[in-house]
């Protein structure tokens, strides 16, 4: 996969990859610990949750030089170790529904091969990944077009919240007998989710995080989300949607592992509900902190539609 630090450096940062990574999964043995419970007997979801190792600590290194100089670099060995922990998904074969001969060819290019471009390899691999959003056939061309113009059209490039479900699982959960609060350190957004049996608000406006109500299905917290604005994508590859989007999130704690799964339906654009790849999180003792302000400063300097 990624072999050299210099191969990493040609693209900026993207939003989430929907693929769950072996290297970032909480160890299986963590599920064998007793599941902490709150006074009302529910699984205790309180705390800060992280997907895996701190990538900055894992791969970014700095070295102090003469006169207080500071050099920043990527540690390729650590990067390889992280990449190696991830099983490469099998590419589709001729006859498979998502087979695309050209994408398969690009996805298999290695550094040094003629035509190798790391960004294009990443895009091809995402295109061929299983579990694509199930768009209606007549809308697939629009998704493709949006994806190809992502570097200009992705709402998230303009400091807008990723929104539910693209933002992923919460960074911190605050749980009371009648409500849970989801906090996100990536974008300074929050969700207040009543769990007292009330229905959705009748007067809610469409927002990035939507209107959420929670309930317990046994030991699983189920969050039902409606009233989401259509000013977001589900992923970086043009997955647009309507305001009819309905998301159901399921959070289940087993020992020290919090499983998170979102199911997305949008009858305007999908042929069926889309069950997104699950995430596994582990507790962290870190403190949540407000992110630096976000400013979009680059659009006027873009000269092409290259993306990553």
């Amino acid at each position, binding site marked *: 996969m990624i072999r050299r630090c210099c191969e990493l450096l040609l693209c900026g940062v993207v939003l989430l990859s929907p693929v769950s990574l072996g290297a970032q999964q909480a160890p299986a043995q963590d599920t064998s610990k007793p599941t902490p419970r709150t006074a009302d007997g529910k699984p205790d979801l309180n705390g800060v949750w992280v997907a895996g190792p701190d990538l900055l600590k894992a791969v970014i290194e700095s070295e102090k030089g003469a006169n207080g100089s500071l050099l920043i670099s990527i540690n390729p060995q650590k990067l390889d170790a992280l990449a190696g922990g991830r099983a490469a998904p099998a590419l589709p074969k001729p006859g498979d529904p998502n087979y695309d001969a050209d994408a398969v060819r690009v996805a298999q290019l290695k550094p040094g091969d003629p035509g190798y471009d790391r960004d294009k390899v990443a895009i091809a691999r995402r295109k061929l990944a299983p579990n694509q959003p199930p768009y209606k056939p007549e809308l697939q061309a629009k998704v493709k077009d949006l994806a190809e113009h992502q570097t200009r059209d992705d709402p998230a490039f303009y400091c807008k919240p990723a929104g539910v479900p693209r933002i992923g699982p919460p960074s911190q959960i605050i749980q009371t007998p009648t409500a849970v609060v989801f906090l996100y350190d990536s974008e300074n957004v929050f969700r207040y989710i009543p769990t007292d049996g009330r229905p959705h608000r009748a007067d809610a406006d469409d927002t990035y995080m939507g209107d959420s109500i929670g309930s317990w299905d046994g030991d699983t917290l189920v969050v039902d989300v409606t009233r989401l604005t259509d000013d977001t994508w589900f992923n970086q590859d043009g997955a647009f949607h309507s305001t009819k989007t309905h998301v159901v999130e399921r959070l289940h704690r087993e020992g020290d592992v919090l499983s998170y799964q979102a199911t997305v339906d949008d009858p305007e654009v999908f042929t069926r509900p889309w069950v997104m790849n699950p*995430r596994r999180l582990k507790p962290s003792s870190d403190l949540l902190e407000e992110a630096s302000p976000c400013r979009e400063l680059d659009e006027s300097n873009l000269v092409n539609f290259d993306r990553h």
Partner: protein
Amino acid sequence: MKGHFKSLGFGLCLSLLLSAPLWAHHSFAAEFDGSRSVAVTGVLTKVDWTNPHIEFSVDVNQDGNATTWTCAALGPGVLRHAGVNRDDLKIGEKVTVRGYPAKNGGNHMYARVVEFSDGHKIMTGLNVTGADQ
């Protein structure tokens, strides 16, 4: 604190490794030419310590004319993790900034390293081409 969800900013793509959201960012290749280098010398006049990447301005005297260069770099999360703080870029300091020029030919660049008048250097971006400048 942690950097689990912080922006890495320009020049660093870990998308194959990440399942967590980050501030989204345009492609480096849509904006900068990693095959060329550029260096400007001038005075730091502005620092935006923002996501998805920081940006600072340098007033440069070019052929008797004052021009302002804008310099994009890594994100605040990765810079702080690496030990670079906003105070390391002081308004009014004379600096030389080396990096990769914008493809549009404007006074804009990806800032890889900032050199100060006392000789010390602070890296604000990563080596895109793999070749030292």
